[in-house]
């Protein structure tokens, strides 16, 4: 993480969650740039814009109006230039069935939204660090599966 900035994108319809997310990254010592979108439709529009830098990591809420996280995930994995973005499912629910299904569909991380800010900061840091290991160590990305 010594050089360059890590681009992070969050798709979440809950304004408070977006705010906490940004604040958590402000407190993490890793150099990051955080963008947010409000739902799945906005997400897909954003990712197909020609003027953006694609994120290194996408945090995806499952339960969103208009287009939910699961549909976004399936769609992303079918688009060649988007399918390699690391996807973190960022959700309040954490049933084993949900978790396993998102992994099968190609998600890399399942992160249950923590209740307190400190835990959020720590888990986000863990996600970023692990992703960085996969980015820099030439490891097989298909094996990047993490449930927190």
């Amino acid at each position, binding site marked *: 993480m010594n*050089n360059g900035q890590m681009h992070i994108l969050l798709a979440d319809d809950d304004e408070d969650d977006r705010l906490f997310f940004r604040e958590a990254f402000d407190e993490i010592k890793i150099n990051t740039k955080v963008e947010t979108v409000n739902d799945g439709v906005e997400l897909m529009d954003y990712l197909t814009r020609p003027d953006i830098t694609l994120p290194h990591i996408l945090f995806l809420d499952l339960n969103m109006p208009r287009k939910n996280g699961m549909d976004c995930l399936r769609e992303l994995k079918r688009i060649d230039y988007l399918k390699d973005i690391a996807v973190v499912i960022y959700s309040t629910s954490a049933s084993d069935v949900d978790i396993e299904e998102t992994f099968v569909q*190609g998600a890399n991380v*399942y992160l249950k939204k923590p209740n307190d800010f400190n835990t959020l900061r720590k888990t986000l840091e863990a996600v970023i660090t692990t992703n960085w290991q996969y980015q*820099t160590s030439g490891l*097989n990305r298909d094996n990047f599966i993490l*449930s927190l």
Partner: protein
Amino acid sequence: MEQLEKEQLTYSSLSFGEVELNETISGDQLKTLAANLGNYGIEIIESPKSILVQKIKDTIIEMIYMDEKLPTIKISDYLSEKLNYSYGYLSNLFVEATYTSIENFIIFQKINKAKELITTNEFTITEIAYRLNYSSTAHLCNQFKNETGITPTTFQRIINKRRNPEEVE
């Protein structure tokens, strides 16, 4: 190499997949090169300390990936012997540069090797535990769960389902 030639730079190859440039390089060239190499997951290393950190990583990865079975020698002894520094020095340097300890890096790599072996569907968990020097299958399963949040069996099921989406178990 292709990227180096594109920038018309001459180079000599060293061990560990290192490359040394035979000429000086302009700031702009370095930036272009760094960006191009970044796409391949290759980093440009400038300081002697980061070279040493990279050597620590390479030595660990080599140890875990080269042979069929991990040698039983302690990795800390092996590192300090091979790189000619005390383990304490290497260990501090590593934390400074990577925000993680050598121990954590070893666990991370071992679990990753375990994942690779699991995805071949050729080995039992017991065999994998033996190859990676775990004292028991339970020890491997616990460390796997700590690292990834899921069990080796769930991991295997997910990977197999990804490969054959139609098959229902």
